[in-house]
């Protein structure tokens, strides 16, 4: 049975994809090998997993201005995530997502980190400010 979670603010087109849920703050520079698309930070909750085509569900941000260019470059390399679903974010994530045309949301009415599991099919609908778990 599907479950819909309201998000606070959002931008971008509707997408569907497989969720990758992180337990900690995220930075494309600190945590990600931007050549392979694999999370390489030692001890990261998603260490060894690829972000390619995933809907990333992330509690918050660390750093960093790298995201401003990084998402666009990941897209050109064919290893970009499909969408970014944040609890809290900084403006760089929005700036990077807008440049890459990648949907991005911030804030959730219910605890998405608990309700969404890695591997779940999810739908991000920014206009409706809605995250749906299949």
């Amino acid at each position, binding site marked *: 049975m599907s479950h819909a979670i309201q998000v606070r603010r959002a931008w971008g087109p509707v997408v569907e994809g497989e969720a990758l849920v992180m337990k900690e703050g995220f930075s494309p*520079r600190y945590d990600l090998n931007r050549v392979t698309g694999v999370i390489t930070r030692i001890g990261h909750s998603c260490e060894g997993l690829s972000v390619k085509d995933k809907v990333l569900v992330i509690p918050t941000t*660390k750093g960093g201005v790298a995201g401003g*260019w990084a998402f666009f470059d*990941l897209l050109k390399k064919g290893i970009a995530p499909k969408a970014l679903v944040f609890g809290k974010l900084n403006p*760089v994530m929005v700036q990077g997502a807008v440049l890459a045309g990648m949907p991005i949301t911030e804030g959730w009415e219910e605890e998405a980190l608990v309700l969404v599991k890695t591997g779940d099919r999810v739908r991000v609908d920014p206009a409706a400010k809605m995250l749906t778990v299949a």
Partner: protein
Amino acid sequence: MAAPDTHPLRLDDEESAMLRGEHGEAVRRALAFQVEVGRFFGAERFVPITNAHVMGDIEVMGDGGFGFLQSMALQDAKCRVPTDSNARCMHFDDEADCLHQDEGEVAKERQVVSMLRDMRVATTDTCINYQTVYQPKLGEHVAWGDTGTVIYANSVFGARTNYEGGFSSFAAALTGRTPAYGFHLDAARRGSIAVRLEAAMRDVADWGALGKIVGHPHQDYFAVPVFEGVRDMPLSDDLKHLGASLASYGSHAMYHVVGVTPEAPSAAAAFGGREATARMTVTDADIEAVYRAYRFVPAEKNVVVFSGPQLSIFEMQRLTELFQGRKVASGMHCFITTNHAIHADAERLGYLKALHDAGVTVLQGVCFYILQRLTEIRVENGWTNLVSNSGKLVNTITAHRFNTVLRRTADCVEIACTGRLQ
């Protein structure tokens, strides 16, 4: 996307003309981008800016960003306000023979620099523009890229900027304005975390450690720590390491130090009526615990790095004194990064020769953690531990799988010259 009438972002006549393409395609694209970002954050207007700090290096832009920059150059993009550039990912000098950066990427990085100059960017290649290039005044709106520059601008100068990453700071440079959200507005600048500082603070690394203690458990762009109880007037380098660390661990963009920074003549002024959501006390023991938590992995080859942010002339002077008459030990590499301006001064003052004689490699116009092909450089040199006095660097470099260790400046020099991991 929601209908425009649900978004209150107002455009003046000039902005409307920009959006219609009357100032050229580069400006139209820049303003259209800014409108999307501004609407996300509920900005109601644009504010004029006086200065921009752009971040464009091939390591983070990749071929995607490179192509985007080329398209801007073809559209004859020109900065409308004084604009400088952040640290690069390539050391163009041949002194650093252990880096072996890719020839092809080096050529692209040179093209990036050339394109930036054509766009009227002064390519200072520095993440310490606030120490060497431009010091905005209280209340002045700017659009700065690197997080360490943003938090310094907001906190120490009382200037106003958000993190403007990637295309965002370029867009602001091209339109001469930025959407008024976040730290451009009074509401975001009020303190939210009360920190009682009881530690003695003896080294820049202590300030970095403080940034980790406060930033790591409060990862929130809109959290604003307020420090009370500072004993001695902190130096610019102290506040630079505090800010860089808070921005790195906590994604923070502003802090107040009561009695030190311009918007904090008192704790009451710093909080401005906002309720503190957290209260902390930081003691000498807390600072020591940060150092103790870093563990060395036993290894023959390691690297000591003074970087992140680039070093000021006074940090260069201190390291010159500490390395005087000593040699970097076998199995150790030691790097310093700074900008071109300070590199030139350090040469004139004899610091570079003394450091070179000690076996220290000084890189200019770069920052260590953004070096192109850093993972391969680590592997080729067989480095395991990366020791630094920068609280930021030991955090930002971790995707490259170094075992990082934070130590005070003099301890870093001791480790570099003895090879003893302690």
